[in-house]
């Protein structure tokens, strides 16, 4: 069964460093998302992406964040200068975006980011 994959599973970085979190959505999916979950808290929407551009972003998704689909298969989330409060689990999700039916979002296993 096709699934969303994410790498790495755990990333440790120093404050101020740039990190790139990688996701490979399911191959025929067209709509992609990033969500964040600070430890012990709820899952929060960051950004959605369709047709090579951002569809919607939350207040969390400030200038330090960017997303990209560099090669038609990967979907990346970049944090330019990490802060302690960026420590969280980051989930990627994708959906086929078939307008005929509702399509649920398929979640990847997450990348745990630890900023020291």
């Amino acid at each position, binding site marked *: 069964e096709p699934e969303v994959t994410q790498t790495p599973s755990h990333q440790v970085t120093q404050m101020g460093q740039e990190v790139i979190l990688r996701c490979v959505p399911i191959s025929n999916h067209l*709509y992609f*998302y990033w*969500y964040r979950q600070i430890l012990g*808290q*709820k*899952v*929060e*929407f960051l950004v*959605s992406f*369709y047709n090579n551009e951002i*569809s*919607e972003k*939350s207040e969390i998704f400030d200038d330090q964040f960017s997303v990209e689909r560099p090669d038609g298969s990967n979907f990346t989330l970049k944090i330019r200068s990490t802060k302690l409060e960026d420590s969280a*689990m980051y*989930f990627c999700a994708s*959906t086929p*975006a*078939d*307008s005929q*039916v*509702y*399509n*649920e*979002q*398929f*979640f990847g*296993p*997450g990348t*745990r980011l630890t900023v020291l």
Partner: protein
Amino acid sequence: AQKVTQAQTEISVVEKEDVTLDCVYETRDTTYYLFWYKQPPSGELVFLIRRNSFDEQNEISGRYSWNFQKSTSSFNFTITASQVVDSAVYFCALSLSHNTDKLIFGTGTRLQVFP
């Protein structure tokens, strides 16, 4: 604005007890979708169910059942004869009418099932 409230932060039960997890949502849209996800200790999000706002039929899947009541804006989840493997955090979520809309999650309920 849309919102999902899960008032129960943590519930502890003994195996074989039934347990109900509450979810109350807020939206002004007439078309929306409701979800439950399970997050086991390993951290991944496991999809359990989706309901749309036009379908208030209750659903049963094995030991799981869901009660959707638009009149009270609730979408509660019951586990019958709970098992230790049910121990997890359970999230209720809301998505609006556009089929690619973001998910809005509640704060989750941590369920601990003791043997």
